């Protein structure tokens, strides 16, 4: 069937993005929102809105029953979960399906399988995808765990099987520390995730974060090349690019082929991302995890391929086959995305909700701004601090960086502090321009280079 209507079970810029994509396909759009999001851009754009609960996400956006009831009462054909909230919750996918409604994304089984980090690692290994040296699955016995850690070499990471997105990870430097941390990690994982299962991985000291966008229709899977997200603060991505900087072509081919092999192995349907660590020193890549949803940084892939990933997700959910073959997907130029957050970069990234006084969005060739903002909008304190994503496309990376500097200078958000100054500084940094970055680049850089800029600003 072709979808006629969709309920958006999310908020913020991604709700706006999904509503626009659905409308472009002629779908009736229904937004499920909390009381805090009654006055929002997404609520304004949607054809219909349904209130699902109070501001706290636990009582609204994470309330499976409330969301499914909203979808039933709105009589929609499908539910799009966006990212975050219930997007990777297999129970939610099951509940939507049980209500006779299509879940826009992979099957609940695929979410469950790939959401268990140990299972995902085994699936990856079986599909021939290189994994970070570590334990074959879960380890429970301390002596056996120490033997594994000693074999692969310290430092190692103790990771929670049910973790992910940077949560539930401890880095230990030697066997004594390992013996102390291992039992603690298990009880902490049990408390945080309801599953005390642990596994062990080697620490790749100077790694880049590279990930491959895949999209499948249940039978066929194609990749849309890779993104690089090495600039991170507290394991949260700050700046993303496509394609990855300086990746040799043969490595790119093997990397993307491995992601497709993994997608095929599970009969993947919808948009997904296979995440890897890439070791510059050896040109080796290692599987980390699969995200079974659309990602925040999907626009950089759209900019270099010309695809609309959200529209493609909706078409596939409606039963269509992939609209492109692998040969149709080509890289054109370079794209960079800056996450603009409601945080004060001069005050330790303190979150800063509040009312937007003015909003000026730069316009021009290759510039896109995905946002939930409008002048006069009161950014609520209840959700994450993402205000928008400035995405810039150029003929090549140098051209893209030049356009990005101009676009950042033209982007004005007043009323609350934002991370625009951080991005303006990164866009002018020599190491960033040369692609000499890795996952542990940004935090020390903030302490040195950015702190220096902040002092100069104070003295000016």
């Amino acid at each position: 069937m072709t979808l006629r209507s969709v309920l958006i079970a999310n908020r913020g810029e991604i709700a706006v993005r999904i509503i626009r994509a659905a409308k472009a396909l002629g779908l009736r759009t229904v937004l499920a929102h909390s009381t805090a999001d009654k006055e929002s851009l997404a609520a304004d754009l949607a054809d219909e809105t349904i209130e699902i609960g109070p501001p706290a996400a636990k009582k609204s956006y994470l309330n499976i029953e409330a969301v499914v009831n909203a979808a039933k009462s709105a009589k929609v054909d499908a539910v799009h979960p966006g990212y975050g909230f219930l997007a990777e919750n297999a129970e939610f996918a099951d509940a939507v399906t049980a209500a006779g409604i299509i879940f826009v994304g992979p099957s609940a089984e695929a979410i469950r399988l790939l959401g268990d980090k140990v299972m995902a690692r085994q699936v990856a290994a079986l599909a021939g995808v290189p994994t970070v040296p570590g334990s074959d699955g879960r380890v429970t016995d301390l002596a056996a765990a120490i033997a594994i850690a000693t074999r692969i070499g310290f430092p190692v990471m103790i990771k929670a099987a049910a973790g992910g997105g940077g949560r539930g990870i401890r880095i230990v430097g030697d066997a004594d520390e390992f013996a102390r941390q291992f039992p603690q990690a298990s009880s902490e994982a049990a408390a945080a995730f309801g599953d005390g299962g642990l596994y062990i991985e080697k620490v790749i000291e100077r790694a880049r974060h590279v990930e491959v966008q895949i999209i499948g229709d249940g039978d066929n899977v194609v990749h849309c090349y890779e993104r690089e997200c090495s600039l991170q603060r507290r394991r949260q991505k700050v700046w993303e690019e496509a394609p990855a900087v300086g990746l040799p072509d043969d490595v790119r081919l093997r990397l993307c082929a491995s992601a497709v092999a993994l997608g095929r192995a599970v009969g993947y349907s919808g948009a997904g991302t296979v995440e890897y660590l890439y070791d510059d020193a050896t040109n080796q890549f290692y599987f980390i995890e699969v995200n079974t949803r659309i990602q925040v940084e999907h626009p950089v892939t759209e900019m270099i391929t010309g695809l609309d990933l959200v529209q493609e997700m909706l078409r596939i959910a409606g039963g269509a086959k992939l609209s492109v073959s692998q040969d149709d997907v080509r890289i054109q130029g370079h794209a960079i995305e800056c996450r603009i957050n409601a945080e004060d970069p001069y005050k330790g990234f303190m979150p800063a909700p509040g009312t937007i006084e003015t909003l000026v969005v730069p316009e021009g060739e290759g510039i896109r701004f995905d946002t939930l903002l409008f002048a006069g909008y009161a950014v609520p304190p209840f959700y994450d601090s993402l205000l928008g994503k400035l995405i810039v496309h150029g003929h090549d990376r140098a051209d893209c960086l030049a356009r990005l500097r101009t676009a950042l200078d033209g982007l004005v958000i007043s009323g609350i502090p934002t991370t625009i100054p951080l991005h303006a500084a990164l866009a002018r940094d020599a190491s960033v321009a040369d692609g000499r970055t890795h996952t542990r680049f940004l935090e020390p850089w903030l302490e040195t280079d950015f702190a220096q800029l902040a002092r100069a600003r104070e003295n000016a």
Partner: protein
Amino acid sequence: MSTEIKSPLPGVFYRKPSPESAPFKNDGDSVAADDVIGLVEVMKSFHEVKAGIAGTGIRFVIDDADAVMAGQVIAEVQA
């Protein structure tokens, strides 16, 4: 006399350090000025709320995981 303890930040108020833990304080407990009585989550980051005043017989007026505005009363104590 009864003194109000107000939230310094807007966000979501939590009475426990984690969902499985015991509350920082139960109704009726005594508090010291430096005691943490809860957390306010603002944009996914957590900030401790201290009593700010010593007292007895603390009584919470909002529930765990309720939304709070900056300046809203969280609890009352006899100081």
